[in-house]
């Protein structure tokens, strides 16, 4: 079995360069690669294109990379929780491509699966369709969307093994599996790293073939955006 283990987040991001295209797993702040983001913040790089469903919040997640002006362009579906993001967008400092969430998920999936483009009904008749090919299938209109790939994909899993196999927990899975497949170099951080052979192969969500580097994460904050509890 090929051993993908590296020491820590700093080693994971060592060769990330300015103007690179990066993917980040996570939905809201759930399932984001906290350790890798922190390590990227410690690097002197900028001009990054970040593909992530959301842009973090002002003081956590990708929001911190925006504060540090490391990001040139965001490709996301929903960015509503981040005032600095909105400020940079309205002032023109930040380039933003907003795309429907299902289209984002499928574009990333397509990137990892070697499918250069596909037709989807999402966005027909809206500004999302501007400049894109429309085609009718069985009486309904669809628009052509292209794959997304990245120089580096950062994902976060619950458990992983030294061969790079990953298991996610709850809804922290979200975009992580597709992004793992769509990165030229995929870096997985996990809450629990075990030797190859200890995870049940029947339960693997992301096979290790997609993962180039894996490390044992630490100090997970797992911040909650909307803490809603039952009364009584």
């Amino acid at each position, binding site marked *: 079995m090929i051993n993908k283990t590296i020491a820590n987040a700093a080693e994971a991001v060592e060769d990330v360069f300015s103007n690179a295209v990066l993917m980040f797993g996570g939905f809201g702040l759930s399932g984001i690669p906290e350790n890798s983001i922190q390590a990227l913040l410690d690097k002197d790089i900028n001009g990054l294109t970040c593909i992530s469903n959301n842009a973090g919040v002002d003081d956590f997640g990708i929001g911190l990379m925006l504060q540090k002006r490391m990001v040139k362009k965001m490709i996301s579906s929903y960015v509503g929780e981040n005032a600095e993001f909105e400020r940079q967008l309205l002032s023109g400092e930040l380039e933003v491509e907003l795309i429907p969430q299902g289209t984002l998920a499928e574009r990333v999936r397509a990137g990892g699966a070697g499918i250069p483009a596909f037709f989807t009904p999402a966005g027909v008749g809206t500004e999302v369709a501007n400049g894109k090919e429309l085609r009718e299938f069985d009486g309904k209109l669809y628009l052509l969307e292209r794959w997304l790939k990245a120089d580096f994909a950062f994902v976060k899993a619950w458990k992983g093994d030294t061969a790079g196999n990953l298991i996610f927990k709850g809804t922290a899975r979200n975009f992580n*599996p597709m992004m793992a497949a769509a990165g030229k170099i995929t870096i997985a951080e996990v809450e629990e790293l075990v030797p190859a052979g200890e995870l049940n192969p029947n339960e693997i969500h992301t096979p290790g073939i997609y993962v180039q580097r894996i490390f044992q994460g630490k100090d997970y904050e797992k911040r909650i955006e909307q803490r809603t509890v039952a009364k009584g």
Partner: protein
Amino acid sequence: MLNKDQIAQRIAREVQNGQYINLGIGIPTLVANYIPDDLEVVLQSENGLLGIGPFPTEDKVDPDLINAGKQTITMTKGSALFNSAESFAMIRGGHVQLTILGAMEVSENGDIANWKIPGKMVKGMGGAMDLVASAENIIVAMQHCSKSGESKLLKECSLPITGIRCVKKIVTDLAVLDVLPEGGFKLLERAPGVSVEEIQEKTEGKLVVEGEIPEMRFE
């Protein structure tokens, strides 16, 4: 006039046994509180869950378990977890039978606008465009008029569109209306104490009124 909970309560009457349902953020989320106990339905969360349960008690809060509104939740018995590409495959594939979402504007041909106010709000569309482009049955929960009193049921949407010709039914604080395939809002029910004339006056798009319009009842 209906309050938000009453709008949710009225929409819950449209829910049928055995349905897989996606509830949007805001009033639609409240619909879950009013689905009768004898109906078996499954709520879908587009980040990757079938089987949304109630909010957790304090000791059960799990940051790895949230709904599409990023609220902490629980799972019902028989839940399934999956990735977001699979989630939207089941949405686009027509497997989710009912979608309930909010709107800023709806037009008389069923167009919906709910994702952007140019120059003011740039939050993004999230999963709304995928949902409205795919769902067979879309019910909208909304206020009939803006805070300044302008109708939000229009001939044509003035805001950027989320999807075209997709809304089937609307429940507002004033009325229940169907969107007719040939265009127009067909008035089905009035909120308690609201007259047909008031609804007419507050609906900019074409309103179709046939016969007596019953008043909604709430227990």
